[in-house]
């Protein structure tokens, strides 16, 4: 019974922890620009993260080794180092965007100066990372992120054209500017499959000392948790499409997202949207700071893990502190967190193959995985998504330029 309860708690945390600032930015902007036409791209992205998170969790549970162990081993030092540097740059940009996003949400809640809130945000994140056990971090921010379910209620109350919503799940080339449409496809898939999620997920499996007995938990977490988490992305896009598109409002501010919940649900909707956003992006900030430290530690062979406590893994601890300081240094310059979010998602797309190819190789290696190596189904999805990842990685920068970053 306690096992079922534990699995259920993990799933709930996965739902609440699914959305980060990249998902919020791209889903709301896509809804405001194209209505429901891009819902299929969210399905594509969610399928991708389910496929590869399941593989990375399985590898971690069976071998006790996380993603960057596999990257180093499979790609060798040189190529592995390129993957590490690319991954760390994306982690850093993501972290900077999340820290800036936290300050922006706090500003909408409290009305205090932005830079003071940036300092408060980074100090609070540092304290949480220093003091909280791994399980608590995962659960507290995952549960807080569930407040974002207010967007599902908002989507229903805004009474969208459900026929058009259903039609949006069918892949199409869309109406309007093709480059802008392509840019959003890349952004939506990239936001769902952003690499830090698998770094964090597989390292978390090692932190929680998963074994082959936890493969069921792994499947339940990714299949149920991420699928239901994907519903939050649908809700964001549908509510933005129902409210913002008819008014000709282009979503350019985090406050616009909150307004999407406020309009149909009043003050309660507004507060829940802001609190949900705060928890979701704070959780993602912690994930990306840890992911940076995990990746470096696994690549260079340092002792790592929150379970060792801060003094027990000093270089790992210094690595996440350095991530926080560097992330803060980027946003304190005054750069717009939403701009950083978009760039981090687009660059993460370029780096996706370097993350996902080694996972696929290791998950297929029977010498490594024994009876738990990929079956036909996992390989079919794995290869399909590898093709998708390669295609969007090749298209990301050209579309960024051709679409004027989605401006058209």
């Amino acid at each position, binding site marked *: 019974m306690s096992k079922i309860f534990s699995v259920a708690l993990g799933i709930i945390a996965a739902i609440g922890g699914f959305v980060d600032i990249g998902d919020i930015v791209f889903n709301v902007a896509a809804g405001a620009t194209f209505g429901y036409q891009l819902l299929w791209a969210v399905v594509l992205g969610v399928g991708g993260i389910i496929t590869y998170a399941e593989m990375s969790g399985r590898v971690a549970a069976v071998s006790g080794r996380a993603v960057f162990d596999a990257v180093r081993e499979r790609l060798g030092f040189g190529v592995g180092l390129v993957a590490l540097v690319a991954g760390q740059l994306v982690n850093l940009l993501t972290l900077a965007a999340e820290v*800036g996003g936290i300050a922006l949400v706090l500003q*909408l809640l409290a009305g205090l100066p932005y830079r003071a809130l940036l300092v408060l945000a980074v100090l609070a994140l540092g304290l949480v990372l220093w003091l909280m056990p791994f399980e608590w971090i995962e659960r507290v921010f995952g549960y807080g992120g569930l407040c974002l379910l207010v967007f599902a209620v908002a989507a229903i109350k805004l009474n969208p054209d459900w026929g058009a919503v259903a039609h949006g799940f069918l892949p199409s080339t869309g109406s309007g500017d093709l480059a*802008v449409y392509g840019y959003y496809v890349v952004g939506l898939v990239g936001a769902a499959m952003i690499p830090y999620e698998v770094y964090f997920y597989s390292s978390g499996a090692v932190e929680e000392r998963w074994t082959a007995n936890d493969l069921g938990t792994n499947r339940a977490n990714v299949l149920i948790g991420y699928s239901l988490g994907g519903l939050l992305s649908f809700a964001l896009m549908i509510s933005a499409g129902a409210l913002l598109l008819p008014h000709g409002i*282009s979503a350019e501010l985090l406050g616009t997202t909150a307004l999407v919940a406020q309009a149909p649900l009043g003050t309660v909707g*507004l507060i829940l949207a802001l609190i949900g956003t705060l928890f979701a992006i704070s959780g993602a900030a912690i994930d990306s700071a840890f992911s940076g430290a995990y990746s470096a530690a696994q690549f260079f062979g340092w002792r790592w893990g929150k379970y060792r406590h801060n003094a027990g893994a000093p270089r790992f601890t210094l690595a996440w502190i350095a991530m926080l300081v560097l992330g803060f240094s*980027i946003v304190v310059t005054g750069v717009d967190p939403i*701009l*950083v979010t978009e760039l981090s998602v687009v660059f993460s797309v370029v780096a996706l193959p370097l993350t996902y190819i080694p996972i696929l190789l290791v998950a297929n290696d029977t010498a490594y995985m024994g009876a738990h190596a990929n079956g036909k189904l996992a390989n079919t999805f794995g290869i399909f998504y590898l093709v998708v990842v390669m295609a969007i990685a090749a298209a990301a920068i050209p579309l960024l330029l051709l679409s004027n*970053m989605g*401006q058209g």
Partner: protein
Amino acid sequence: MFLAIRSERIPSGAWISCLPDRHGSVRRSASLLALLAVAAGCGTPEELSKQAEEVQSVAAEGSLLAHAASEGSTTGVFTREHAKALRKLLRKLRPAIEDRQLAGLADRTDAALERLEVGDERGPGRLEEELSSLAEAVGQLAP
């Protein structure tokens, strides 16, 4: 989309020049981001129709915000901070607007948002109507 905003959305937003010299590497990173953003063309739009779309978007969003304030279904802090952020969007765009009609409408939108930000004594209901009609008027310039 999320582009007209950019650097000026953030308070006291000197982009890079605020950094002291000892932060050279941070300055270089920020410069790289800025270059990429410029390369991607995320600056202020120059076409009249795109400028009109942005002004229309700000006015329409301001109208929604004023509506919420008039109904008492939002918080004072949110109204103030979001109105302020919308004005920053507009101020970023304003110097690039050459069309006199659009410039006038943008200025009136900014003035209405300023009244929303500080809490206009005539009430947000009036501002909702004003911003709504401004959005409609600007919309006619953005076919």
